[in-house]
């Protein structure tokens, strides 16, 4: 075999796994669609999405409680995580002496590798009692502790290591010389951060935040353990919620004798997948647009 023809063979061999991973996504969407067919044919899509009555035995499949539960928990987590992670990343990238940076960074990396169930246990052991015995009573609210606040806190703790490391990477793409341009004119470190680092990287930071959202949407185990799992549209952070991933994980394989139940869960999965894909596409779109503007 000549070198040239060998190269062509290698090229096609490498092509297969690369294509396979993209095909996988399509296959998943198609299978989920096909499996959701039954539930989708019972009612118009809008009715399914906007109905808040979830009573499978009675044939009522309203997804609003789960959609709202997902949004509440995710939004709360991100509201907590974004400022903390950005400030930490700015500190690590722009202020921390090398020794402190080299100590903190491995810890953060480690944190992002911890299995989700451990964060869930941590939530049950620490956050739930804290909310039940301290936070809620302080505000005159009666809460079991299993609520959106607990889910949001646990989820925030889970996404913030990823947000920190990704935004740190983004900040590090700014060349030293560019910071020095500002510092050399007498800018303070903070001014260099504001006028150079953030100015230069905000598209990347926005993309990181959107990616953080899509991570947070899909996170299942830890949230499921602390969020209460009650299928009702929540109205305060002390209410329990039932996010989509928890719905699927808790119920798949159970009560499958109920008609349409299987299909209903498949549609929940499709919804979740759609949300995550949309957010990922948004992140890419934002990056593309902002790069062009620059």
């Amino acid at each position: 075999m000549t070198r040239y023809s060998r190269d062509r063979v290698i090229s096609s061999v490498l092509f297969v796994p690369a294509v396979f991973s993209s095909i996988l996504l399509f296959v998943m969407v198609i299978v989920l669609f096909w499996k959701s067919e039954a539930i989708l044919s019972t009612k118009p899509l809008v009715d399914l999405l906007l109905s808040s009555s979830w009573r499978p035995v009675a044939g009522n499949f309203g997804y609003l409680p789960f959609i709202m539960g997902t949004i509440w928990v995710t939004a709360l987590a991100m509201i907590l995580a974004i400022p903390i992670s950005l400030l930490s990343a700015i500190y690590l990238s722009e202020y921390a002496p090398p020794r402190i940076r080299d100590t903190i960074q491995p810890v953060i990396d480690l944190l992002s590798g911890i299995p989700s169930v451990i964060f869930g246990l941590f939530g049950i052991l620490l956050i739930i009692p804290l909310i039940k015995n301290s936070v809620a009573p302080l505000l005159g609210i009666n809460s079991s502790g299993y609520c959106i606040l607990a889910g949001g806190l646990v989820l925030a703790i889970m996404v913030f290591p990823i947000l920190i490391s990704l935004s740190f990477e983004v900040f590090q793409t700014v060349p030293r010389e560019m910071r020095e341009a500002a510092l050399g004119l007498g800018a303070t470190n903070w001014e260099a951060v504001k006028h150079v680092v953030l100015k230069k990287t905000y598209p990347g930071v926005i993309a990181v935040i959107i990616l953080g959202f899509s991570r947070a949407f899909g996170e299942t185990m830890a949230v499921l353990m602390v969020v209460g799992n009650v299928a009702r549209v929540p109205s305060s952070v002390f209410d329990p919620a039932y996010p989509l991933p928890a719905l699927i994980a808790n119920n798949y394989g159970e009560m499958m004798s109920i008609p349409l139940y299987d299909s209903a869960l498949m549609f929940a999965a499709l919804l979740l997948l759609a949300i995550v894909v949309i957010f990922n596409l948004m992140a890419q779109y934002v990056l593309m647009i902002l790069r062009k503007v620059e």
Partner: protein
Amino acid sequence: MNETEISIKNFSLYIENRQILKNISVDIPKNQITAIIGPSGCGKTTLLRSINRMVDLYTPVLAEGEIIINGKNVLDPDINLSLLRKNVGMIAQAPNPLPLSIYDNVVYGLRIHGIHERSALDTRAEQCLQSVGLWSEVHDRLKDPASQLSLGQQQRLCLARALAVEPEILLCDETTSALDPISARHIENELICLKNDYTIVFVTHILRQAKRLADYVVFLYLGELVEHGPAHEVFTNPQDPRTKAYLEGVFG
């Protein structure tokens, strides 16, 4: 006798326990171009960045001795770095425009030092761009991103940006090395014009450039100050054998 602008006294600098600069003493004359020459790695950049205290930006350093500007020791931990760097401008090796428009680059320093009045900024921007010969090339596109300029134009923009805050001293670290020969000459000529109003310290490892520019020469070798003096003396009649060898191109 010339007036001294920067007085370096028994200055030593250590990075990670390694001595980079060894007991350097030299008076840098006012309103002249001082060339710091020496082979690569001899400590030119480190010495230059000590003068505006950029040397300790990323790694902790240990410094001994003094660098006196206007009666103040810049190595004093309590020195106001913002005011020091306003007075001691720096032009880097490669052009480093800020991610801003041409105009905003020039007035950046003025703004951070508290000048926001539009007419004052406009006047100063035009003056500075004029004095680096860039005004005629950019006056009709001041709002364009600075990154759209050619490298040579960018470097002149950086020079204009440094001039805008009215420093007394300009530090140049191989400021022409990223440029084509014509742009490089452009910058050299501008520096020669500017020396009436500024004290310029110019690091270079190109001897011919040092000869073209320098009024005063500082020769560093392995972190040591081997010889310094008026350019014509050092170039025509070097006292130290190491200087002689360097001028003859022995160290390349």
